[in-house]
């Protein structure tokens, strides 16, 4: 059993981003970059499956800049066995990523792909579903529980009304939700060990990947700011203001 875990280098979730003055995008210069949190959950889940004897190999892959090797090293410090970087300065859209991942899946032949349900930068929530479509595989999105048994995956999904359980034949794509697990902190020895694990660098051309965009970003602006509110001194004042000023209580 081999598990492929696609990950993405994104602005760290603690950073509050700012829109560039010319409204051409978000300023990502000199901000802390990390593994997309949902992808970190995906790595952790794959590593746990390996540790419990249900998987033999965990391969982390990413598409991105040279420095995205840092995120692959993080994945390997958590426990991935090796990493693959498809090196590009273009930030490809989900469909192009899915097509490139399909080529990687055909090369690596994993039994299971575990990936984050969305990246916290573009918030698209598409790539896993698109990859499943391109491969004709089963998909289990927004998973909060995953069990592998006799060539099948049982997953519990977080849906709007509560939880849903699906049985997926393998190979399959699983996308992670927040409560699937709590990723570990990589220990120093494991961080050192990760530096020696194999990391292959591919060019998009090696996979016939086409990253030309289908969407044109015309503008990126700040969201509407809320007017500064007031502090009220007491419950009485709060109720009074909600009734007479905001008129949201009768």
């Amino acid at each position: 059993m081999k598990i492929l875990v696609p990950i993405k280098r994104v602005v760290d979730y603690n950073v509050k981003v700012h829109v560039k003055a010319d409204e051409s995008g978000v300023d990502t210069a000199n901000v802390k970059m990390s593994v997309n949190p949902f992808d970190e959950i995906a790595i952790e889940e794959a590593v746990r499956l390996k540790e419990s004897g249900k998987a033999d190999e965990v391969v982390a892959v990413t598409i991105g800049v040279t420095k995205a090797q840092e995120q692959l090293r993080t994945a390997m410090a958590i426990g991935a066995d090796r990493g693959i970087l498809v090196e590009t300065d273009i930030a490809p859209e989900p469909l192009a990523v899915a097509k490139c991942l399909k080529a990687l899946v055909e090369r690596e032949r994993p039994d299971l792909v575990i990936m984050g349900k969305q990246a916290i930068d573009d918030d698209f929530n598409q790539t896993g579903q698109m990859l499943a479509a391109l491969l004709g595989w089963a998909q289990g999105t927004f998973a909060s529980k995953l069990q592998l048994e006799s060539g099948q995956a049982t997953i519990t999904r977080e849906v709007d009304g509560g939880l849903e359980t699906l049985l997926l034949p393998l190979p399959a794509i699983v996308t992670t939700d927040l409560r699937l697990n709590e990723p570990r902190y990589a220990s120093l020895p494991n961080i050192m060990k990760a530096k020696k694990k194999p990391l292959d660098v591919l060019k998009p051309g090696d996979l016939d990947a086409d990253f030309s965009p289908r969407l044109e970003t015309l503008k990126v602006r700040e969201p509407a700011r809320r007017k500064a509110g007031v502090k009220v001194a007491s419950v009485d004042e709060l109720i009074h203001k909600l009734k007479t000023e905001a008129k949201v209580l009768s």
Partner: protein
Amino acid sequence: MSTLVIAEHDNVTLAPATLNCLTAAQKIGGDIDFLVAANDGGSVAEEAAMAAGVRKVLKADSPAYEHPVAENLAPLIARLASEYTHILAPATTFGKNILPRAAGLLDVQMISDVTAIVAPDTFERPIYAGNAIATVRSKDARILLTIRSTAFDPAAAGGGNAVIENIDATSDAGLSRFVKAELSESDRPELGTAGIVVSGGRGVGSAENFSLIEQLADRLGAAVGASRAAVDAGFVPNDYQVGQTGKIVAPELYIAIGISGAIQHLAGMKDSKVIVAINKDEEAPIFEVADYGLVEDLFKAVPDILEKL
């Protein structure tokens, strides 16, 4: 131009988010059809046919559509796509699961979580947990969108008289199999569409204490929400979560109790009309977005409100 709106339903009634999606379709312009793919979805199709401004309702019945399994629904959407310039679904867990799969089959770069229609090919959507709003133009021949419900008012549920057309179902893909659903039963309004939402966070402290939040919600006829911290701590189930990756809400009144206000939570509620924050930490970031902030221990403030309302 013509738009296909994918109806979300439980085989009996139409989910409210479908009507918000219909409003977005009306803003695009052109003819609008609904797709009701269900297991015996007659009542859903009739309800859809009554919605304002719908040309026809395509009704596909199959046991394979009993549960919204993406592997079964996406091929049906893809088969119908050639008749339409736009295909829309609500940006709920239903739409987010199925539409990208259809987009993959159709070789379309879909656009998620649309909050404004600028032109038939140009849309606004939040990125970075709503800290920026991107305007994007699609260069694809066909446009697939998921629609954020809070950004569009629901279309009128009555007044329409669309034709219901039975269409062939696709065969069962034989991939994912539905096992079970554990859905929260509640008499409270639905979180995504409630007029008032009362949410609790880590400060509430325990599942038992959360009954205080629920009492206040019930007094106000409100839905109950929660921060990620409260869900992770096991105070409430996952479907209570408001935030970047949970539910997006925009009620008339949002009361945040014991919630510090991480940006991921703010992303899910900052478009509420009036925001009240109750927190004993006066430095909590939630106060930066609150219209009315009360710095007080929630275990004193909430019983006090219950007594005085």
